[in-house]
Each structure stands twice: as structure tokens, then as C-alpha cells.
């Protein structure tokens, strides 16, 4: 047994593969763990949606969503976010081809689209506050700002995460570890897109109906 230590590189068939496999296991385990995290995030958003639906008529005599929400801006930001989901998909395809530059480029485009989504959302919030609807106006607006804002907060966290990943990719290139990280962040990004579809439908479309 002692010679296995003195000559670790010599045991190529044995634990050279073992190391590789352990690494692979670790990465796939992290991927699985992230899927489970997404389940918990679904519950988190589900609770916020339930609260919004329960409180949607409680405007306390104040402004309603139908009066203040402007659909044009929302449709634009919806398309921006959907497009960013598409570009993050392209980034993953580039990664699978092993093209580091393409990967970083498409991630940067995704982040840029995400940032413009956040920019539009912040503008919308400022506009609403000027129109006299803030978080303390009524239960409806409390639920509105917290639900939409939590989604926005998730997107913002995703942005910071993506920038950190681009730096890591620049330094380390595509490795099993960075590959897993990109896969996870893109999973997260698609997830936020799906949540947004529900926000768009339940908060905005049904709100102005």
C-alpha cells in the first residue's frame, strides 16, 4: 500500500480516474442541490403570489392597478427578459462547444439585457410612487411592490453572480467547475423568466383586464 503513496501518479488506472469521477460526482451533486433550491424558491414565489391574489382587491379606496399600470413599458421589459433567457441559452451552447470568448460575450449580453430590465423596473416603481402608489398606500400596493420587487431582487442577484462568473471564466477558462457554475446560473436565469411570465400574467394582464 505504501508504494501507492510514494507514486501517486503511477496509479493511473486506479485513482487517477477516481479523482476525476469524484469531481464529476461533486459537480452533479451541486447541480441536483440547485434544482432542490429552485423548488424552495418556487414555494417562496408561490406564497407571494397567493398573498397577492388574496389582497388584489384590497385597495382601500385608493388607486387600483388598472388605473396606474402602464402596459407598454411592461411588454417591452417582458421581451427584454425573454430575450435574455434566449441569449443565456446561446451562452451555454457556446460553452458546450468550448468557445470561451463566445461564452463570455453571450453572458455579457444576457447581463446587459438583465440590467436594462432592472432599469425599466426601477423607473416603473419611481413612476408609480409619483402617481401616488407606494408600498404603504394599500394592501394591494404592498403586495404588488413586494412580489414584483422580490423578482427584481432575484434578477439583480443574478446580475452580480453573472459578472463574478465572467471574471472567473476569464481567469480560469472552461473547466468542470466553471461549467457547472454557468449551467447553474443559466438555470436560475430561466427560472426567473418563468416566474416573470406568471408575474406578467397575474399581476399585469389580469390587473388591467
Amino acid at each position, binding site marked *: 500500500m505504501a508504494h501507492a503513496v510514494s507514486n501517486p501518479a503511477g496509479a493511473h488506472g486506479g485513482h487517477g480516474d477516481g479523482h476525476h469521477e469524484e469531481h464529476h460526482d461533486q459537480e452533479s451533486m451541486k447541480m441536483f442541490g440547485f434544482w432542490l433550491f429552485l*423548488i424552495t424558491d418556487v414555494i417562496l414565489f408561490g406564497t407571494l403570489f397567493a398573498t397577492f391574489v388574496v389582497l388584489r382587491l384590497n385597495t382601500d379606496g385608493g388607486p387600483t392597478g388598472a388605473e396606474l399600470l402602464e402596459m407598454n413599458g411592461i411588454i417591452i421589459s417582458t421581451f427584454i427578459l425573454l430575450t435574455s433567457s434566449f441569449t443565456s441559452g446561446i451562452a451555454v451552447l457556446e460553452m458546450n462547444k468550448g468557445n470561451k470568448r463566445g461564452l463570455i460575450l453571450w453572458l455579457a449580453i444576457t447581463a446587459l439585457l438583465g440590467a436594462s430590465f432592472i432599469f425599466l423596473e426601477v423607473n416603473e416603481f419611481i413612476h408609480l410612487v409619483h402617481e401616488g402608489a407606494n408600498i404603504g398606500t394599500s394592501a394591494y400596493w404592498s403586495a404588488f411592490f413586494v412580489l414584483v420587487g422580490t423578482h427584481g431582487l432575484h434578477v439583480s442577484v443574478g446580475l452580480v453572480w453573472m459578472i463574478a462568473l465572467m471574471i*472567473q471564466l476569464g481567469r480560469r477558462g472552461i473547466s468542470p467547475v466553471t461549467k457547472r457554475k454557468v449551467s447553474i446560473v443559466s438555470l436560475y436565469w430561466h427560472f426567473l423568466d418563468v416566474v416573470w411570465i406568471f408575474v406578467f400574467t397575474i399581476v399585469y394582464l389580469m390587473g388591467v383586464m
Partner: protein
Amino acid sequence: MLDKIKQFASEFFVTGDPLILGAQVSIGLSLVAILFVLTFFKKWRWLWTEWLTSVDHKKIGIMYIIASILMLFRGGVDALLMRVQLAAPQLEFLNPEHYNAIFTTHGVIMILFMAMPLMFGLFNIVVPLQIGARDVAFPFLNSLSFWMFFFGAMLFNVSFIIGGSPDAGWLAYPPLSELSGSPGLGQDFYIWGIQISGIGSLATGINFVVTILKMRAPGMKLMQMPMFVWSVLSSCITIMFAFPILTVTLFLLFIDRYLGAHFFTLDGGGNPMMYINLIWMWGHPEVYIVILPAFGIFSEVVSAFSKKKLFGYKSMVFALMSISFFSFFTWAHHFFTMGSGANVNAFFALTTMLIAIPTGVKVFNWLFTMYRGRLSFPTPMMWTIAFIPCFVIGGMTGVLLSVAPADFQFHNSYFLIAHFHQVLIGGVVFGYFAGLYYWWPKMFGFRLHEGLGKWAFWFWNIGFYVCFMPQYALGLMGMTRRFNAYDFDMGWQPLNVVSTVGAFLMGMAFIFQVWQIAHSIRFFKKEKDGDAWDGRTLEWSIPSPAPLYNFARLPQVTSQDEWWEEKQRIANGQPAKPLSKLEPIHMPKNSGIPFIMSLCWFVAGFGFVWDWLWMAIPGLIGVAICMLVRSFSYDTDYYIPVDEIERTEAALRGTK
């Protein structure tokens, strides 16, 4: 200047109560003593490298257990203070505000900061060993979970000497818990303390689901897992689905209080019942989260001390899983009196009765496991035997409560108090004690004194019945919960005195347990072969305490109760399994980030409580920096070389 400082201190510290002043002085003195001992014996580095930064599941488990025993002490003192106050009519031992604070902190601490960490401690120590793994799936995250729990608990507990305790009940129903009803800081401490530790619990849930599904020893099929592992799996799945609801609920309450939103307020279109629904959609699964692992422990203990395979393995698995499913459909039974109508109440009454069925199945499984077994009765088995009748009574009073029309009578009376203490003490606490006694030799490598353990056992059990049986009667006599005083002519005093005596018997029992531990450390009896109870599962196949890497060679599993079968094979003269070649073991490196990041959360939470943004914002920035530092560090693991494994094994097993 001096006046300003005085003014600040009088707002910062809780003043004016001799009990709390005494506590402040003693906390201050013990802090100084701890700092002195650590500095005098030059233990700071040891503390940091061996414990605070450790990602070893066994050490994290031990830290969870130590923290939970401290919390048991605090929650227990709260309970005794309440019982003293209720021992005579119109007693003025605690004033009403103080009484409110004490029943609130008693509930929160016992469930969230005693039962939960004790449970996580046992998860951590036992699960990897039982499935033949070297650690949990995400050791770094595991350490983070512990420190989030720890700093959350500290934030909650500090409220009692700084700023004021929460006093709106353990689930903080609005509108009382809103700014209008609780303008003080206590409620903010409540929100942030529970929020921070709750995030840690959620992460633990995910961590153990992945550990159990992905890290079992080669050959171990799901239906060959020890029953405790099944119970942890069902509990962790329940955590995953329940805890996000708690996070959102507390967050919304915080937004109400901090930004003036109207989720649960009476004005502005808010809906307080929404909070009560949400908190119980977490709260009801939560009680199953803590009881399911206790069921797992009983299954392990019964089978080990009956020297028999667990009866009805498949039905046990089915029962655990169906309980964790149905636990999400019973929440409204906590407020049948809300007025949601007969149909809603009927639905929740039925689901509540339904969930008693799988629990009953389990009781029969344990009884049949014992039937015709070779029984022995060391302390873990005694707790198990005591649990069965206690939990059956508690379960049956629960079914009484589930009858919605009858519940209008029982609601918020001492009948309810007696019921949930019976299932929580008789089920959860007895279960975790059984587990603690059972796995103690595995954790620490020495045995606990059995005689003192038996004294503690009898004091706990007799104390329990003396304390809580009278409360059923008191409830039927009309005594409602959260009373701090009652009139002479109510006729409640005799039973209240009996109940108080019972509470103090349980207090004595705790002292016996502390004595038992101290005595066993003093007269240290080393555990030699690691198989303290002639056990059945894999944790008993390795030395006690387990080495850093747990298993030098990953075990090959072919059946349920693998270690028992292996011992049988050897006893029958079959050759032992050939030893495979040792290979370097892949291990995670220690990290200080979990500790620092949780400390940052504490700082942020403390800042939000006091509305000091200059403190809260740097705290949150600290959290973000910690996450980024972790993301950028790639050198997070190492290999233990073979010769080191050989040396460790030889020293531990005393061979070769």
C-alpha cells in the same frame, strides 16, 4: 455627554426588573469568565481551527447539541417561572408584561432553538455514518447552516437583556405583532432571529436530501436504508416545502413594521388572517418536521434492543412519507374558530384525523418489533417504551381536538396546552433523548452512567404526567392559555399547584442529566470497539468517535441492517469481506467564511432591529462579500494520503 450615554444605555438595556438585572450580571460575568479561560489557556487558536471553522459533520453536530442543551436550559427556566406565577391565584411574581414575554420566548426557544438544533445535531452526527458516507453533500453549506442558526438564536436571545423581549406569542399573530400592537423592539428581534436561523434550516433540509439521495454507500438501495435515514429524508423534504413559507411570512411582517406596508394590518386593506394561515402552513408541517426524526430514532432503538429486524419496514416508510405529505393539508385546524365555514372545517378535521392513521401504524410496528424479541432495557430503550403510551394519549387528545365543533370548546384552553406538550415532550423530547443516549458513545467515545440516567428518566416521566395531566382538567374547567393570574373563586388552584410540582420534577430531571454527563466525563470509561450496543447499522462498524474521514474504505452494502448481517456471517464461520486497497480520501477544507458571514447577518439583523442603517447596510455588504469570496475560491478541498489513514486506523483500532 454623560447624560447622553446614560440616556442611550437606559434605552439600549432592559432595566427595572430585578430578575433581568440578575441575568444581565450573570451573563456579563460568565462572558468575562469564558474570555478569561480561553485567553489564559491560550485556546483561541484551538477554538477557531478545531471548531468555529470546522466543516466536519460530527463536530457541527456536537456544536448543535451543545447549543440546544443551553437553549433547553433557558426555555426550561422560562417554563418554571411561568409555573411559579400560576401556582397561586393573583400572584405578583411576574408582572403581566413580563409574563407575556416569557411565554413567547419559551415557545420560540423550545421549538426553534431547542428541538430544531437538537434534531439537526443528530442528523449531522448520524446520517453520514449510517449511509456509509464521509461527510454530507455540501459541508461548507452545512457549517453555514449551523452558524446561521447560532447567530439567529443569539439575536433572539439577546433581546431579553438588550432592547426588550418579544411578547406577542410564539407565532406573533398580527395585529398584536404589528407596530400598532407591539411598538417595542422585541418583535423585530423575533423576526430577525427566526429569519436568520430559518434560512440555515432551509439549507440543512436541501443538504440532507442530496446527501441521502446521492451519497449512500455502494450497494445501499433506498429500501435498505436505516429507518432513521428515511425519517430524516421525510423531515427534510417537509423542511424544503415549509420553510420558504416562513421566510416569506416573516419578511412580510417585517415590511409591514419597517416600511408601513399593509399586509396584515387592520387598516389599509390588510388581512391579519392571511398571516395566521401562512404561519400555520409552515407551523403545522414544522411540528411534523421535528417529530418524524424521533419516529426514526425509536425505530432504530426498538430494533437494536429487541435484536430483531424492524417489523413492517415498508409500511414504516409509507407512513413516514404519507405523514410528510398530509402535514401540508391540516393547517387550518389551528383556527377552526376563524369562521371559514363548515365545509372548510370539515375538510381540515378529516385530514387531521387521517394523519393519525399512519402514526398508529407505526406504533403497531414498534410493538410487533418487540414481540418475541430478545429485549433489554438500557436508557435509550426506556425512553422508547415511555414514549409509546405517552404519545398514544397525546395523539388521542389530538384527535379530540380535531373534531371541529368540539374544538370551539377546547380552543386555546389548557386542554390544548396539555395536548401539544404531551406530543412534543412525550414524542419529540423523549425521542431525541433516546437518540442522544443511544448515539452518545458514538459521538464522544465514552459511555454515560446508566444509573443516573435512570434517575433522570423517572424524574422526567413522573414529572411530565404530574405536570400535564392536571392541565387537561384545567382546560375543561375553563382555564385559557396565556393567563398570568386567575381569581380565587375559579377553583383552579389545587390542580395548578400539582402542575407546578410536576414542572419542578422535570427541572430536577434536567439536573440529573447534567450530573450524569459531568459524572461520566469525570469517571471516563473509554468505548473500546465502537459497537456500544451490538448495533445493526453501519455507524457501529467504525471506531468511536469516528475518525475525520469516517470510513477508511467505503462499505459495500448488500442488505438492510448490513453491519448486523456481517456480524452474523462472521459468527457463522463465513469469511469476512476482503479488504479493498486503501485510497487517498477526498475531504473538504475548513473555512472561516460561514462563521464570518453569519456574524455579518447578525450585524445586519441587529441594525434592522434598531433601525440603524449605518449598521445594517455594512452587515449586508459583508454577507455579499463573503459569498463572492467563496465563489472565487477554488482551492476548497484536499486529499488525506494513504499512510495517514493507515496510521489513524491502527491507532484507533489498536491493531497492526
